[in-house]
């Protein structure tokens, strides 16, 4: 009997341990291993950082060349003092890992198409395998490998990457199970050693985020549905009255590359009849990604010295994309934000100058139809010859399942993204290769390393000239008074509409080369006293090459330029106000037409009340205004009422009416100038609707939404918008939701629901630099740290921190969150 009990209790104990050491199903996801997770010695309790923690230590680590010291200020921003470049990047890698390891590894897993390793095929309603397959077939790993080759071919970049990787691994090697960041424990996996390739993958993730969107298939379908006239009305090239980055009237020299529309162009490409089914995309970059930057010269400032401002708009996440720091090495001091995952400071300032970036929004991703000889895909047609296909095997490991191998055909255009083996069936049996400048082996890191050390405008020009993808507008200002801006990147020399549609890959005349850098123009010290960019067309349509795309912004650039033109004796404080300004230019331009067209005789008292809110609105998207709560849904409703009927004549997907930025200006211009706009008619009804009917109907359709908001006491904009900063895994408890904030699409403070100014920086280049900045996050990626979301409340209310390059002695006199010494 005793033996029976012994066996029974031994079995119960073992079973208990096994159950508590196994992730259990919970809905469509899995729990952590609960025994491990709840263990105060190993599990999440170990991530509960004591509120009075000081970050001190003396570390002896292999791989250092000399001594480095780190002083954490009271916001946990490290000020790193190293004796040489390599050690500085080593320490940067160590700090990124110490405070941000999970996110940096997670983002490289995403970029490399490896999420199924963590989550399995599906979890919590997301099909991770589909996402992985998409990224593999897009050639993300191929692109990272190409760029790694280029980066490692440069001695300086290679040293930076090697040191950075060594620093990350030095930290990883000190960890035990209990030290793993919380998310590893939640998802039950372990950190793996860092590599230079992972840094390259991270940078490709940024390329994807900023240039990975495309509408080529949707536009090809649109071409099949609409007549040429209609098409040109819906997707016009250029915008009236847009303030280009390079001002209108600039003379463009004779182009270095002669553009020739292929002989088959009219019959094959501009045929406006044949559609293709769009392969479903499991992921898309946020179309709200964008940015503002500008610099004003001393002629317009109170101090007589330039001021530079930069605020990149990206998805706002916790942990934040950015990590703030100072790096000091004999020869230079630099301060700004870095990417956990890569060496160098990306946006910032040094002792001589400051710089910032906005996204170029240009179309650098195209598709070519591939004709294979047979189903083996061994050969494909190119200029009446059969070319041999290369194949690339991408092995996707899936948790709990056998590996899946993606055999990807590689052509001279790029990887064949879509073919019969792609899980989303196309209605045709065609194959399409993706041609994307991110595939080119380029060294973008070099640009930032050189900017970190730049002393003057020549150094700036030299730093950015090799920058390829994602194309960026680099704004610059220096203490000796120069300001400049240049859209830099590898952009195709295209003829009008080239790359808007899928192109025939068997005809080399549809290929293009890059625009020579001499034709990427710089605007330097213009007489008007400022330079600026906010994702608009860099040039007007007289630029010799076609700048296609549907993402270009109209309202932010124009309001920025209007404000800057009118300002004099500008101070850093003025710039803070401007950078967080909520004036809605779209509403200013649209309101007269909306009020003109709305048929008030058809509105009841309730509806009139909402209209009055709009009528008397001060046109500002401030948190407490009610006007934007009426205008924003009305505007979206109007887009749908205007175009949905025409867009519904086909089952084929067309560009998204609500998400495609160009529809804002297209609709606005129609509203202002075209009272007989042909799209106003609802083609599904026998009668002919007018602008007046559509505007009124669009308004009536939003009334239930407004009434519901009013019932919830959420008519003020901040409550209606209900913004937040989301944890990368979208776990509510680790996110910050319901932030009371103004802003929105098209205003300078471009804070939409979860996307907005991810870093606000203002640098006045006086002899002693006067700089301000903050990002909506915190320096620690650990949800159990008090530094996790420290900056959010201040960011929401439009306040700034003073940010400074300090000397070691300065730091020693300050109240610190800790200091660390690194020794070899």
């Amino acid at each position, binding site marked *: 009997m005793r033996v029976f*009990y012994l066996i029974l209790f031994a079995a119960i104990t073992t079973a*208990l341990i096994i159950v*508590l*050491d196994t992730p259990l199903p919970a809905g469509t996801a899995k729990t952590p291993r609960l*025994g491990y997770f*709840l*263990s*105060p010695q190993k599990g999440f309790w170990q991530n509960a950082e004591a509120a009075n923690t000081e970050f001190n230590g003396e570390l002896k680590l292999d791989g250092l060349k000399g001594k480095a010291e780190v002083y954490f200020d009271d916001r946990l921003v490290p000020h790193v003092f190293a004796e040489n470049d390599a050690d500085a990047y080593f320490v940067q890698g160590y700090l990124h890992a110490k405070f941000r390891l999970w996110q940096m590894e997670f983002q490289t897993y995403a970029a490399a198409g490896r999420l199924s390793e963590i989550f399995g095929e599906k979890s919590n309603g997301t099909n991770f395998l589909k996402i992985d397959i998409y990224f593999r077939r897009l050639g993300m790993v191929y692109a990272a490998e190409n760029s790694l080759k280029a980066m490692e071919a440069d001695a300086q970049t290679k040293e930076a990457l090697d040191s950075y990787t060594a620093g990350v691994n030095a930290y990883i090697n000190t960890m035990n199970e209990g030290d793993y960041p919380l998310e590893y424990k939640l998802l039950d996996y372990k950190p793996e050693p860092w590599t230079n390739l992972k840094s390259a993958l991270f940078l490709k993730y940024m390329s994807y985020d900023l240039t990975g969107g495309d509408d080529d298939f949707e536009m090809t379908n649109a071409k099949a549905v609409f007549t040429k006239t209609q098409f040109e009305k819906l997707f016009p090239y250029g915008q009236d009255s847009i303030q280009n980055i390079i001002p209108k009237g600039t003379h463009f020299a004779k182009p270095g590359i002669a553009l020739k529309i292929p002989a088959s162009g009219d019959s094959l490409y501009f045929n406006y009849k044949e559609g293709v089914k769009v392969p479903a995309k499991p992921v898309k970059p946020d179309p709200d990604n964008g940015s503002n930057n500008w610099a004003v010269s001393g002629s317009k400032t109170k101090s007589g010295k330039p001021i530079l401002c930069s605020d990149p708009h990206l998805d706002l996440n916790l942990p934040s994309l950015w990590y703030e720091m100072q790096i000091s090495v004999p020869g230079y001091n630099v301060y700004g934000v870095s990417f956990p995952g890569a060496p160098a400071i990306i946006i910032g300032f040094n002792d001589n100058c400051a710089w910032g970036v906005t996204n170029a929004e240009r179309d650098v991703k195209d598709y070519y139809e591939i004709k294979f000889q047979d189903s083996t895909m061994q050969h494909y047609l190119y200029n009446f010859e059969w070319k041999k296909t290369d194949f690339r095997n991408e092995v996707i490991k899936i948790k709990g399942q056998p590996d899946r191998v993606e055999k990807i055909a590689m052509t001279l255009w790029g990887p064949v993204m879509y073919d019969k083996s792609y899980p989303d069936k196309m209605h045709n049996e065609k194959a399409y290769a993706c041609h994307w400048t991110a595939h080119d082996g380029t060294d973008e890191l070099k640009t930032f390393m050189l900017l970190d050390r730049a002393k003057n405008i020549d150094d700036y020009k030299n730093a950015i000239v090799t920058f390829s993808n994602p194309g960026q507008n680099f704004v610059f200002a220096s203490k000796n008074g120069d300001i400049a801006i240049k859209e830099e990147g590898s952009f195709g020399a295209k003829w009008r509409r080239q790359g808007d549609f899928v192109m025939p890959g068997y005809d080399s005349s549809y290929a293009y080369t890059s625009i020579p850098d001499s034709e990427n123009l710089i605007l330097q010290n213009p007489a008007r006293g400022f330079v600026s960019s906010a994702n608009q067309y860099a040039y007007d349509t007289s630029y010799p090459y076609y700048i296609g795309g549907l993402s270009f912004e109209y309202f932010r650039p124009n309001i920025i330029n209007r404000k800057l033109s009118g300002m004099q004796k500008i101070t850093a404080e003025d710039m803070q106000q401007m950078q967080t300004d909520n004036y809605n230019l779209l509403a200013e331009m649209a309101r007269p037409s909306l009020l003109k067209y709305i048929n008030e005789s058809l509105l009841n008292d309730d509806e009139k009340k909402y209209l009055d809110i709009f009528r008397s609105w001060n046109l500002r998207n401030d948190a407490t205004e009610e006007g934007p709560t009426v205008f924003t849904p009305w505007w979206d409703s109007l887009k749908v009422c205007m175009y949905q009927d025409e867009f519904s004549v086909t089952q084929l997907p067309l560009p998204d009416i609500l998400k495609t930025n160009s529809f804002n200006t297209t609709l606005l211009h129609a509203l202002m100038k075209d009272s007989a706009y042909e799209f106003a008619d609802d083609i599904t009804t026998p009668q002919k609707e007018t602008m007046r009917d559509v505007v009124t109907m669009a308004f009536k359709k939003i009334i239930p939404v407004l009434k519901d908001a009013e019932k919830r006491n959420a008519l003020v904009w901040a409550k209606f918008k209900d913004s937040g900063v989301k944890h990368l895994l979208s776990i509510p*408890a680790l996110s910050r939701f319901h932030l009371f904030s103004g802003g929105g699409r098209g205003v300078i403070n471009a804070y939409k629901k979860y996307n907005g100014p991810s870093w606000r920086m203002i640098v006045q280049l006086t002899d002693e630099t006067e700089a301000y900045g903050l990002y909506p996050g915190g320096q620690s990626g650990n949800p159990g740290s008090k530094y996790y979301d420290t900056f959010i409340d201040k960011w929401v209310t439009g306040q700034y921190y003073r940010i400074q390059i300090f000397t070691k002695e300065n730091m020693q006199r300050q109240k610190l969150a800790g200091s660390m010494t690194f020794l070899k």
Partner: protein
Amino acid sequence: MKFIVAIFLTALLGYAAPLYFPWWSFAVTSAVIAAAVHQKSWKAFITGFIGMFLLWGALAFIIDVNNEHLLSQKIAQVLPLGGSYILLILISAFVGGLVSGFAALTGSFARRIGAMNQDIA
């Protein structure tokens, strides 16, 4: 006295073992202690349970106070315990106690069989 000593030893070794071995390694030490310290079976269970319940409870409590409940409140939403850090501490402690209690019960029966075999010899 034995009871108190056994609880103390359970907590002490239950703390030491996971420093070097997996989180559940305290099950082994709890079983060994129950085999070494002769008590009735039900008492062995309670000893094992209380030893680890107190250890995990105390460790979690100290960590939580120093952390000002920052993380525990978040995890108590993830798990989902309605955001109650007290419940989270109690559940953590209970899990440690339960495994330890059953391990101690196993150890206690192992001892009896050992003793029985000795009697036969």
